[in-house]
């Protein structure tokens, strides 16, 4: 069955104003939830691991997560290199925590790798929240890691840092950076994501 995500969205060059308000990712929900459960499977022992997978488009047009891979508590490297040519859509990753449940959106390097890898769709699962970066016709081709770190720091390392809940500031930074670098940004449940930028 063809994907419920519009072909134009998966093309990576959809005009940013034409992005849909809602992304139906129900075809991937089970796979994403399974990898999230793997990420927190040893939470009782105080151990979590980031998981990643490569998102590919199959011959019938449907989306699938392949090349599941685990990392450590703060880092994972998707095994994108083994993807068949022409089928690569993007990546999926988890952001688990050992000490508490909180949704942590995309990090500095998540933005960088999404751009460097030319990901058309970059998915992230953290504490039952799924976020998505959608590459568009307006997305930049290159990004400076130091520039993006500075932007993050501007949101996070403020004089009133302790008065802020960091995931809120990181989500604000995600919105700012998505706008700046020409991404569509979505947040929602594993089944339905709503457009934020």
């Amino acid at each position, binding site marked *: 069955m063809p994907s419920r995500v519009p072909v134009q969205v998966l093309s990576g060059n959809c005009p940013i104003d034409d992005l849909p308000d809602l992304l139906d990712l129900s075809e991937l929900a089970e796979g994403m939830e399974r990898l999230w459960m793997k990420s927190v499977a040893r939470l009782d022992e105080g151990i979590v691991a980031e998981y990643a997978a490569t998102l590919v488009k199959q011959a019938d047009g449907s989306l699938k997560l392949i090349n599941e891979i685990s990392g450590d508590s703060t880092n994972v490297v998707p095994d994108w290199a083994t993807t068949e040519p022409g089928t690569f859509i993007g990546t999926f990753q988890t952001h688990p925590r050992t000490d508490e449940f909180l949704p942590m959106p995309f990090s500095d390097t998540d933005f960088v790798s999404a751009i460097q890898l030319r990901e058309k769709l970059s998915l992230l699962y953290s504490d039952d929240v799924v976020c998505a970066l959608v590459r568009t016709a307006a997305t930049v081709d290159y990004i400076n890691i130091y520039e993006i770190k500075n932007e993050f720091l*501007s949101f996070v390392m403020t004089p009133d840092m302790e008065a802020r809940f960091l995931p809120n500031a990181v989500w604000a930074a995600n919105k700012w950076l998505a706008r700046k670098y020409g991404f569509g940004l979505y947040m929602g449940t594993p089944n339905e994501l709503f457009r934020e930028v």
Partner: protein
Amino acid sequence: MQNFEKIQYAKDDSWLWALLEEAKKRRAAKGIKEEPPFDREDAQRIYEHYKAKQEQRQMLQPAFLALFEPMDSNGFRAVCPTMENCTVEAPTREEAKAALIGELKQRLQARLRAGKILPTERSSAEMVEVALGE
């Protein structure tokens, strides 16, 4: 090559998690124990605040940028690389700054008189002062 690519494209969130730990440490130091829930409205407020700050910063872009560097002879060199490409040297940083402002004012006034630039709401002298004010 493969390893290099993997490092470059790693989803390495360690820096972000370290920031989270720092924030938590500061909260704990201030006796804040309760973690509020994730709140998109609060995130939107943070976003709007930052956006307003950035817009304000863009409006206050200086007309000139100046670089002050110490010289081997113990003096200071002040360089304005933008627009006028002006360099002066003086024994102290303050004198270098004053000399640079003076030189830029003269050059701007000369260009204004020659009709090479148009007057704005700010006088050339004000533009220089705004740019180099600290």
